[in-house]
């Protein structure tokens, strides 16, 4: 019978996985992820790959918005920087995909830090508006710098290869994407056990108090923008390699909103929450599409309104979560665990 989780050593308190149950769940999760591509068909593999890319992007945004408290509506623009850098380096200069992906991460980190400069003077609402402006400016440059990006035309990116192996199927991409997603999750969890991460959290909780305690706000805010944009750039670069095509429509302000919804619905300031949110927001529209297809034979009018229903459900889900469970899916998961831990004497 447990009444809660208590630790008697600092090591136990600092551990990434604290209890037996957590370790077992982690192993089961990893086994599931490893077995999944062998049993799933192509449709589900595509979805899994989309979830993986979204997870990387959501982790990036969560570092900035969830952990550091800097609201960003520039996600789509930053992903565009990553996607176009990777796409151009591979398509025009013939660089291998891993080099161009790394270059895209670094380029996005630099651009992210540049647009993070206003964050020194702005916070909350005003920062949200400033990052929205960043989104519009980046997308405008992408669509109007024709000699570099090809403007509004799509940019075709060749398939990546690794050790002489063409990565051209969903099955092969699955390993690349989820390996990188695992790396991003692990480094982010560990980032918040270092003094950098703790400084970010201090800035979120009370920025002026953090500065009084000796945290250089400018430096750490820019660092948060850079680290966050690094992962966002990776998500963008992977989109470019995975889809073989880069178009500006994929990086509009709607994408910024989508990712913000992911981190809020998943749980702000949590790596597992980023994963939950990414999975939920990617699978929900797919589920609605399937539902619409299933209903089409009985109700023919359903077919025409599916896109609108998706949009309405998207808005409704955001509103309902914020009203009824502002801490997101992560809190729901925690409540479920607590319920069974205390069962049958939960109150």
């Amino acid at each position, binding site marked *: 019978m447990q009444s809660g989780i208590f630790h008697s050593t600092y090591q136990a308190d600092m551990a990434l996985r604290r209890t037996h149950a957590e370790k077992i769940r982690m192993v089961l999760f990893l086994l599931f992820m490893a077995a999944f591509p062998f049993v799933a068909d192509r449709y589900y593999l595509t979805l899994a790959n989309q979830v993986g890319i979204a997870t990387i992007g959501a982790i990036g945004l969560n570092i900035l*918005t969830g952990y550091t408290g800097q*609201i960003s509506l520039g996600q789509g623009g930053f992903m565009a920087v990553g996607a176009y850098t990777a796409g151009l380096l591979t398509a025009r200069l013939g660089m291998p995909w891993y080099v161009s992906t790394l270059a895209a991460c670094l380029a996005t980190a630099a651009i992210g830090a540049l647009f993070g*400069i*206003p964050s020194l*003077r*702005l916070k*909350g*609402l*005003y920062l*949200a*508006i*400033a990052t*929205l*402006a*960043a989104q*519009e*400016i980046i997308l*405008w440059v992408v*669509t*109007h710098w024709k000699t570099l990006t090809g403007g509004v035309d799509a940019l075709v990116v060749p398939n990546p290869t690794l050790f002489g192996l063409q990565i051209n199927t969903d099955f092969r991409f699955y390993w690349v994407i989820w390996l990188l997603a695992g790396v991003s999750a692990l480094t982010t969890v560990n980032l918040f056990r270092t003094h950098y991460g703790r400084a970010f959290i201090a800035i979120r909780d*009370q920025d*002026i*108090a953090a500065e*009084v305690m000796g945290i250089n706000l400018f430096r750490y805010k820019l660092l948060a923008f850079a680290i966050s944009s690094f992962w966002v750039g990776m998500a963008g670069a992977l989109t470019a390699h995975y889809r073989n095509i880069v178009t500006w429509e994929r990086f509009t*302000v709607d994408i910024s*909103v989508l990712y*913000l*919804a992911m981190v*809020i619905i998943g749980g*702000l300031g949590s790596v597992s929450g980023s994963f939950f949110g990414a999975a939920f927001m990617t699978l929900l529209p797919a589920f609605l599409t399937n539902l619409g297809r299933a209903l089409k034979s009985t109700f023919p009018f359903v077919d025409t*309104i599916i*896109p*609108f*229903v*998706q*949009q*309405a459900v*998207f*808005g*409704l*889900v*955001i*509103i309902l979560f*914020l*009203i009824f469970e*502002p801490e997101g899916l992560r809190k729901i998961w925690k409540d479920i665990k607590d319920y069974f831990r205390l069962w049958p004497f939960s109150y």
Partner: protein
Amino acid sequence: MDLFVQLTLTGLTNGAILALAALGFVLIYKSSDIINFAQGEFLLIGAYVTYAMIAQFGLPWSFGVLLTMGVAIVLGVVVERLVLRPMIGEPIISVIMVTIGLSSLLKAIVSTIWGNQPRSFPPFIPSRPIHILGATVGADRLWAIVVAIVMLVLFNLFFRRSKVGIAMRAVADDQQAALSMGISVKNIFAWAWSIAAMSAAVGGMLLANIVGAGPEIGGFGLRVFPVVILGGLDSIPGAMIGGVVIGLLEAYTGGYIGQGLNQVLPFVVLIIILMVRPYGLFGQEIIERV
């Protein structure tokens, strides 16, 4: 010279409509510290409801316009009651996000009812061309300027003279003090949202009369941000002047330079203003204490 006059007139009309949209925005921010990302969708709903009243139900336009305003007021109250009131005291990111969700929901409702095809609007304001200083401009555009000015003057009077207007200013200044003076803050929020929805509906009507009712009207929601940041988020004269400045800026860059620069320049201006003077030209500077 002709081009200059032409561009100035276009800029002024766009600026007038932007100012109307910005007005609702400022009103909500002033009384409740909420930023409304769904302002563009309020314009959209105003445009389509007017379209439905006049073109689909065949009502005379005066009646249709009044009914549309009624619908907008109801919409504002419903939105405030169901969506925004549970958000009181929540962190700012939740409030931003809930209005973004609202904008998505409203957009979906509009497209479910009227589809995504632009509808030609039965013009109830005459649009015959008028010649001024060698430039030609539709009469509907001039009317848009007139209506915007009348609305702004009315709002200013409302805030200075009427009891509700003064109560609203009191709530904006200090909610607790207003409560202790017997002002119902909840009612004031409902007032703010219904007035904001109504002024946006008027903007939507004017816009629909000029360009037709189409989903791109919702895009005005994003163009409002440079306006309110320039004028100051909590200043009504700021919304007017910001609207005119941004409208003219868009028209001049579009006419003289082109290249779609008019879409992005307002946002560059926005970032510059935020860096130099975050509270805008006429906004109130807030000193923060821990």
